[in-house]
């Protein structure tokens, strides 16, 4: 008997050791994660997304924690060597248990579904953040392997740098002049794909000054790892000054310059352009659509395939 107990003990100690190792990993890892973009957002969109993550995680614990407890308890209690535990080899059906195991997860999913619809509508990246405020218009064009941001209202364009006034909604129209990309600035909100011949949109706002990294997160080839940029959220005055600075640029972004810029290149330094070829963004979309009406921009064409 002693041998058997020792064996059982060894099992349970092994299991708890494994759990401890796993827990420690998570804890140690936790040190860095609190400053990470997911848990420390700098804009209301990212904050809402995080809150949904927290809520859903919490509600899921209703299922997760019982599983952990039952797994540990049953494993130890009903180990074969424990002759004191009850043994009912024919126990294979019990109505109340069936009802609980179907209805509890189902109830959680109903709860989740309500939140899912509410948040998905609220956080739809196409939705304007504050209809009473005219957002800053930015056009983002994905290229191999860099981002070109055009400010059509200011007649300037920037490679690999994005600036925005703090507390002002920004509406980014996105397309690609190459393969599929995905634009994200994690501290401010989620991502959306960039596709050639099509336009997607991302509405964001920063509610704190600072510099946040953004990048393409959809693998796009050998320069993918370096396809990143900094986003500067600044005061209104600083932003105006920044626009002025860009306007001082000696480089104009005309069709010929654009062609050169669009060629594959890596680690492209921040470059300022002014003035910018009018309707550049629409032309880039247009060059892939060849007059096909259903692929013209400004409509939500990404939906067509559903």
């Amino acid at each position, binding site marked *: 008997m002693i041998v058997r107990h020792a064996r059982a003990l060894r099992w349970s100690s092994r299991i708890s050791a494994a759990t401890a190792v796993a827990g420690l990993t998570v804890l140690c890892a936790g040190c860095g994660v609190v400053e990470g973009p997911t848990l420390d957002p700098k804009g209301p969109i990212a904050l809402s997304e995080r809150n949904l993550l927290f809520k859903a995680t919490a509600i899921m614990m209703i299922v997760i924690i019982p599983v952990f407890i039952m797994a540990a308890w049953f494993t130890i209690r009903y180990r074969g060597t424990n002759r004191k535990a009850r043994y009912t080899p024919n126990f294979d059906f019990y109505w109340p248990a069936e009802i609980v195991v179907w209805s509890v997860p189902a109830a959680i999913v109903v709860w989740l579904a309500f939140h899912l619809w509410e948040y998905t509508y609220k956080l739809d990246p196409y939705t304007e953040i504050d209809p009473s405020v005219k957002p800053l218009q930015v056009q983002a064009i994905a290229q191999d392997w860099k981002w070109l941001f055009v400010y059509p209202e200011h007649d300037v364009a920037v490679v690999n740098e994005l600036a925005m006034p703090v507390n002002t909604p920004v509406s980014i129209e996105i397309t690609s002049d190459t393969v599929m990309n995905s634009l994200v600035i994690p501290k401010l909100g989620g991502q959306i794909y960039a596709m050639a011949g099509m336009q997607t949109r991302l509405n964001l706002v920063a509610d704190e000054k600072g510099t946040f990294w953004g990048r393409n997160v959809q693998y796009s080839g050998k320069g993918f790892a370096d396809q990143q940029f900094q986003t500067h959220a600044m005061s209104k005055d600083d932003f105006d000054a920044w626009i002025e600075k860009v306007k001082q640029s000696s480089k104009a972004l005309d069709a010929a310059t654009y062609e050169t810029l669009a060629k594959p290149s890596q680690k492209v330094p921040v470059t300022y352009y002014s003035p910018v070829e009018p309707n550049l963004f629409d032309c880039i979309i247009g060059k892939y659509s*060849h*007059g*096909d009406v259903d*692929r013209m921009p400004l409509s939500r064409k990404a939906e*067509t395939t559903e």
Partner: protein
Amino acid sequence: MTTVADMTISHRDAERYEEKDFGFWLYLMSDAVIFALLFATYLIMVGNAAGGPTPKDVFELDRVVAETALLLLSSTTFGIAAVALSAGERGKVLLWLAVTFLLGAGFIYLEIGEFAGMIAEGAGPQRSGFLSAFFTLVGTHGLHVSVGLCWILVMMGQVYFKGITAPVASRLMRLGLFWHFLDIIWVVIFSVVYLPGLL
């Protein structure tokens, strides 16, 4: 030593043929999904003419009607062959299989002509998304019909050399399923691809 043929295992054989028929139905269902997805793809792409020819410019009603007639007729003649099969009339089976083959070959001949004509006019599959989807959908059906033609030839050989044995009859029944299935697909192609394109 006994051989398989010596044994009276007709019940077992019947079961085997039933399994094969069931398996063949499953294959047809799987194939039907392929066609369904090609249809869906075609419907997504049909507007993407990219400034090139549109359905109205490339479809010819006369040819399509002729193709349809040939294929529908071939299904009927296959039906006659099947009736002859159950009557055990080997000669008639061969005759009507041959007629079916000729009708199917006529269909393929017309389809190749259609494709060649389109390509010559610069309306090949490389021209636009619409044409890629058109050639792939109709071409996949044509490929199936061609495989069906080879199968008819093989079965004619089997009927000729082996006679109407149980395994041969069982295979002919499945060939029939296949041939009628292709007919149904063609009817859908006619209604989804050609009719809206011509109207």
